[in-house]
């Protein structure tokens, strides 16, 4: 009998030792322990799974690929997902888009839960993750740098910007930095999307993915092809934080996010990644309605001690323009000859110059010919051959080109004003006085303080002005702007691009006895501009334009016509700018009439986010004087 009992007891003790039953019991123990510690409620878990508080008081993950979760309910249930994750760690079944065992597909989740619960390696066997280890070693990471390509000329829409991370490799120098990998989040847009593109882009119709495009490809894209200056912000991350960042980035290989152009975009998801790397950072919560990449740069640059080195990488155009400043008038003529005719490199005029000057002129000419070739598809092969000939001549001068420090034309983006603007003011209109409040969602106009913004470009989106007229005792929407874009490209000996503008919005007019009448209009123009440096910098512009308007003030409620406008702006001091313009339009369709307008505005910057304005405008039968205080927020 005793023997029998012994045997029974032995069996009972032996049973848990066999694998099949040990797993469930140890798993259950870990799951119980995790509940006791309330791990599923912790910020770390929510950062790992990209949970956000939803409207119903629960949590929903912003991530949209089912393979990113181990539970079918993972997207909305952090606790169930945590239970399933622990279960997944006991299995070598391949999961997620990356097709690895859960321990390897989700290395950051595994590391955190292991640390929190103290996994017993005898009962939960750790797997080796060769793919992750090789990938991690491939970075040989030393530092993380945030990259911000600024807007490019003649496309104010690019002011919205883009950001990505660069993983700086140990032993790289500024000269070999382009070999580093980046971590980039972008939407996957199928071919031939056409007009569906903006619509689907805004409403989350595309999926976005993380990738590690080599930095040299991104530099080529932004600096050489799009001609955008690049700003690089080295972040103060320690070894542990860099490891966390890469571990989570590896997990994000399994993720896809519905791409929302305005909010959940490239910059937003980078912030989420940075938050995971350093959980003391609270970044994404600053962006409720939209995430403007330049704002994320301002936010990061404003975190105490986070950014410790800022570098500037000039675009090809910036290089050409800065180099040109170092040319004498006769040298400029030589460069123009070289651009027309590569054999001029062998001419006596060139050969008589000092060697270093010859090299410099050939380099400027080569830069410019390359720039032209990149923009003129039909003659690209000719430009290429031309450039080869210049370069061959250049190679015969056996000296290296000198190092030049290229200064930017605009300050770094975080020195700029914030994106949204509120204005409060008052003034006179004809025989009445008024008070006015204006809120503009984004972004920048020609009179706004320029530091940090691309010069000569304006893009305003979503602006609304409310005005109260004291004598008329009327409060009304005075102006509304859907979009107002203006791009000036000063023409000079080397660069000739058209200037253009587009404005959709509503104004208040007086016309044919209709006082304070709403007028909806669409206006577009194309023209040219030029700059001078008499005081500091002045830009003059002229446009041919067309306009269509709708208002009950008009016969047949509309008028369509065309005309011209000219204007200029001048920086009188560093803080004080003057902008004046005048135009004449004649309307041939609908209400046959004409319109003579002119305006003079001045802005004085008080601080980075504060400015004063005094504006006078005359239009048709209206005279309007407006004084405002403006705050950017």
């Amino acid at each position, binding site marked *: 009998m005793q023997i029998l009992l012994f045997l029974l007891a032995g069996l009972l003790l032996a049973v848990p030792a066999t694998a099949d039953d040990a797993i469930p019991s140890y798993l259950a123990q870990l799951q119980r322990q995790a509940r006791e510690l309330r791990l599923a409620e912790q910020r770390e878990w929510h950062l790992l799974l990209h949970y956000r508080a939803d409207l119903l008081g629960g949590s929903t993950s912003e991530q949209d690929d089912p393979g990113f979760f181990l539970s079918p309910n993972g997207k909305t249930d952090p606790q169930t997902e945590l239970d399933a994750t622990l279960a997944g760690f006991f299995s070598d079944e391949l999961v997620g*888009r*990356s*097709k690895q065992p859960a321990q390897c*597909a989700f290395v950051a989740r595994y590391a955190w839960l292991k640390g929190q619960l103290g996994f017993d390696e005898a009962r939960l066997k750790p797997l080796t993750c060769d793919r*992750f280890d*090789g*990938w991690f070693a491939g970075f040989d990471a030393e530092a993380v740098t945030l990259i911000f*390509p600024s807007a490019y000329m003649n*496309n104010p*829409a*690019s002011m*919205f*910007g*883009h950001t990505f991370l660069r993983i700086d490799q140990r032993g790289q120098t500024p*000269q*070999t930095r*382009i*070999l580093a*990998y980046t971590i980039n989040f*972008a*939407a*996957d*847009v*199928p*071919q031939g*999307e056409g007009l569906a593109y903006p619509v689907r*882009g805004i409403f989350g119709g595309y999926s976005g*993915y*993380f*990738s*590690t495009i*080599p930095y*040299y*490809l*991104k530099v*080529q*894209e932004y600096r*050489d*092809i799009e001609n955008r200056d690049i700003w690089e912000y080295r972040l103060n991350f320690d070894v542990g934080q860099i490891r966390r960042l890469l571990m989570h*980035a*590896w997990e*994000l*290989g399994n993720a896809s996010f519905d791409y929302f152009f305005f909010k959940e975009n490239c910059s937003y998801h980078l912030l989420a990644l940075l938050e995971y790397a350093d959980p003391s950072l609270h970044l994404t919560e600053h962006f409720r309605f939209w995430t403007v*990449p330049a704002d994320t740069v301002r936010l990061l640059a404003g975190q105490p001690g986070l950014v410790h080195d800022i570098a500037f990488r000039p675009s090809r155009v910036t290089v050409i323009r800065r180099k040109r400043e170092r040319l004498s008038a006769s040298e400029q003529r030589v460069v123009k000859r070289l651009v027309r005719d590569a054999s001029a490199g062998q001419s006596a005029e060139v050969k008589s110059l000092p060697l270093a000057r010859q*090299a410099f002129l050939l380099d400027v000419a*080569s830069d410019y010919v390359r720039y032209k*070739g*990149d923009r003129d*598809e*039909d003659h*690209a*092969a000719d430009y290429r051959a031309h*450039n*080869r000939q210049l*370069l*061959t001549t250049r*190679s015969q001068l*056996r000296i*290296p*080109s000198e190092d030049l420090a290229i200064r930017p034309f605009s300050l770094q983006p975080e020195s700029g004003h914030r994106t949204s603007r509120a204005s409060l003011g008052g003034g006179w209109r004809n025989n009445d006085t008024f008070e006015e409040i204006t809120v503009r969602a984004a972004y920048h106009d020609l009179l706004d303080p320029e530091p940090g913004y691309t010069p000569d470009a304006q893009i305003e989106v979503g602006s609304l002005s409310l005005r109260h007229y004291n004598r008329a005792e009327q409060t009304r929407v005075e102006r509304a702007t859907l979009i107002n874009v203006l791009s000036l490209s000063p023409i000079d000996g080397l660069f000739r691009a058209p200037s253009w503008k587009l404005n959709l919005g509503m104004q208040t007019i007086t016309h044919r006895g209709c006082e304070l009448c709403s007028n909806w209009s669409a206006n577009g123009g194309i023209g040219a501009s030029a700059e001078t440096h008499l005081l500091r910098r002045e830009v003059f512009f002229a446009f041919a334009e067309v306009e269509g308007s709708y208002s009950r003030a008009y016969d047949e409620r509309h008028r369509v016509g065309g005309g011209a406008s000219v204007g200029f702006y001048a920086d009188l001091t560093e803080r004080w700018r003057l902008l004046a313009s005048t135009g004449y339009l004649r309307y041939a369709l609908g209400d046959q009439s004409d319109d003579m307008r002119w305006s003079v505005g001045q802005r004085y910057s008080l601080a980075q986010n504060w400015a004063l304005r005094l504006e006078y405008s005359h239009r048709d039968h209206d005279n309007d004087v407006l004084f405002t205080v403006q705050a950017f927020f």
Partner: protein
Amino acid sequence: MLKTLVVALGTMAVISQAGLVLAANPDTGPGCGLGKLAWADFKNQKNIAPQVMMVTTNATGMNTFAISSGTSGCTNDGQVWASEKAHVFAVINFENLSEEMAQGKGEHLASLASLMRIPEAQHGAFFALTQERYSTFLQEGETSSVALVKALNEAIAENPVLAQAVAR
């Protein structure tokens, strides 16, 4: 940023096009084969920029550098195969390299030198070499990036200072 996106994706599509060409000629060489890609294959693209502007990508383009995406073409989990790094770099940056070789310096040239394991102290000698034999290297590069890297390696082997530095 719409345009940014299009261009970003377009850049990748150019890369993936290279992959497609290779898929059609599977026996063009070792590794990912991109290095064997002849510049002739790009001739119908008058240059890369307008192409990049026009082309939008498909899913294969994203895959090239997608994180933890396994093996595809020239990359493994989104990173370029070690053995192909110099070739991939040379084929993508050939325009910049051809400028910098003539100018006797530059970051693309320095980066290629470091991928070819030339110590930094010898970069100056390497730059001078590329400037001196510019026409030869340009010709090789027009053929293929593999030919360019091979010609550079041969020139290094003939140069006592560089040969010694690389061997070390």
